[in-house]
């Protein structure tokens, strides 16, 4: 006899408001229904009443982890409307902050995955590593969450001390290669919780339009930094890690390898940081009617922004945001079918869901 287990909206694994109704037969999940929207904030609607400075601060609040990505996205879309191109140094700084954000997001996720596996030592190790990244972000921007780095036409702050970032990268890379990656990929405890669990096939991933590490762990080699480069990514050399197996282990391995690729990108960006100004933007902006689009590879996958503006208006006519979790989370239904009930928290976490983004 099947029965239904409601999980959430206060979730046992992730402190985020969503609800998963699991239909089980014994300990095996047969199907699931996902409910979101418990904390929907109507940010897109609010944006229609904000001016071009306020709208950047507002969009930074879409997500508490990848706040920088949202200001980068909205600024890029507005720059398209205005026909502005930021100076080279600003484009490099955008890459540096975006990769630092990816580092702290992926390390945070590794810690949470460790905790859900019952590996609390790993959780503490990852969070200690993450603090080093947060310290660097604080040193650059003065903030730990909302960095306020992006502005229309460039960035607000310079990277004045590349040496501290390079030291942190050396430290982090050593910890990843010597400790985190070997434990996650060879420990019997970790493998028993990850390998072959929560599989999303390549066909399912394509059909559901999933993005980011979730797509790449199902064999889809899509990465906006490579497919449609923005900021200074065209000048960076990096690999796009892809794993074909589609299970929790693949999602873990892809993120771990992406941490190493982020370190590689950061070293290049810091060593080639061009001289020059931080922004190119007139004192007062006069908006034409138009639309701008921005696609950015956030830690969880592609963020899409569509911004439309009417001539002489102070506020955008429309700001539409498609966040990565919005694209990825429906795939959880496929991942949990046939899984053991006890594996479902880790399977959900393996998507690295963000409901702050989803309930934008």
């Amino acid at each position: 006899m099947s029965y239904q287990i409601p999980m959430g909206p206060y979730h046992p694994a992730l402190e985020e408001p969503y609800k998963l109704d699991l239909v089980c037969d014994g300990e095996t999940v047969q199907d699931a229904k996902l409910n979101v929207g418990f904390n929907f904030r109507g940010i897109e609607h609010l944006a229609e009443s904000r001016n071009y400075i306020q709208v950047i601060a507002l969009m930074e609040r879409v997500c508490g982890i990848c706040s920088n990505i949202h200001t980068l996205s909205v600024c890029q879309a507005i720059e398209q409307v205005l026909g502005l191109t930021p100076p080279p140094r600003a484009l490099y700084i955008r890459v540096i902050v975006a990769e630092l954000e990816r580092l702290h997001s992926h390390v945070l996720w590794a810690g949470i995955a460790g905790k859900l596996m019952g590996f609390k030592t790993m959780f503490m190790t990852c969070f200690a590593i993450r603090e080093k990244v947060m310290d660097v972000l604080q040193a650059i921007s003065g903030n730990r969450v909302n960095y306020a780095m992006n502005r229309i036409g460039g960035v607000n702050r310079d990277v004045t001390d590349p040496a501290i970032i390079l030291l942190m990268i050396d430290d982090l890379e050593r910890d990843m290669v010597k400790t985190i990656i070997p434990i996650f990929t060879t420990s019997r405890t970790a493998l028993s919780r990850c390998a072959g669990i929560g599989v999303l096939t390549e066909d399912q991933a394509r059909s559901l339009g999933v993005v980011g590490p979730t797509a790449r762990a199902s064999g889809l080699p899509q990465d906006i930094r490579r497919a449609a480069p923005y900021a200074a990514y065209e000048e960076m050399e990096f690999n796009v890690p892809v794993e074909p197996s589609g299970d929790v282990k693949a999602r873990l391995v892809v993120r771990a390898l992406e941490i190493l690729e982020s370190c590689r990108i950061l070293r290049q960006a810091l060593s080639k940081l061009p001289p020059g100004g931080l922004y190119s933007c007139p004192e007062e902006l006069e908006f034409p009617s138009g639309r701008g689009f921005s696609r950015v590879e956030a830690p969880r996958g592609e963020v899409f922004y569509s911004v439309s503006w009417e001539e002489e208006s102070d506020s955008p006519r429309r700001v539409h945001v498609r966040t990565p979790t919005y694209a990825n989370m429906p795939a959880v239904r496929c991942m949990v079918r046939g899984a053991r009930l006890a594996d479902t928290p880790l399977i959900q976490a393996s998507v690295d869901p963000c409901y702050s983004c989803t309930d934008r």
Partner: protein
Amino acid sequence: MSTLESISADLGLNEAWELKGSSHWLASPTLDVRKLAELMRARKARFITITATELPEHGGIALDYHWDLDGQLLSFEVPAENNQVESIYDLCEAADWIEREVHEYFAIDFSGRDYVPLMLRAGDKMGVNLREEDE
């Protein structure tokens, strides 16, 4: 024939593509969204989202369907005449959530599908929040 021209030809459209920002843009009042979804699936394009925009001076709602084809952003603008458009959910699973959201916030009816509430947790008044109050 370029990729964009072949897409127009397959869709039976004569309108010209425009470059709007970073998107290749095709607007057509006669665009068949289901034919579009089938074509994009056949070409292994990735569905990104649907942007609903209320047009100025009570010009109604326009729906922009965005797809990624080998890294190129393709956008197709369709007017939602009488606030109704055919659903593509059965052809493109990825469109499920955004069709439900646009239904809730702009009162657009995607014909041929059922709705389960996505964002609105209480009440049944459709079209609230993102639609002008006097509409």
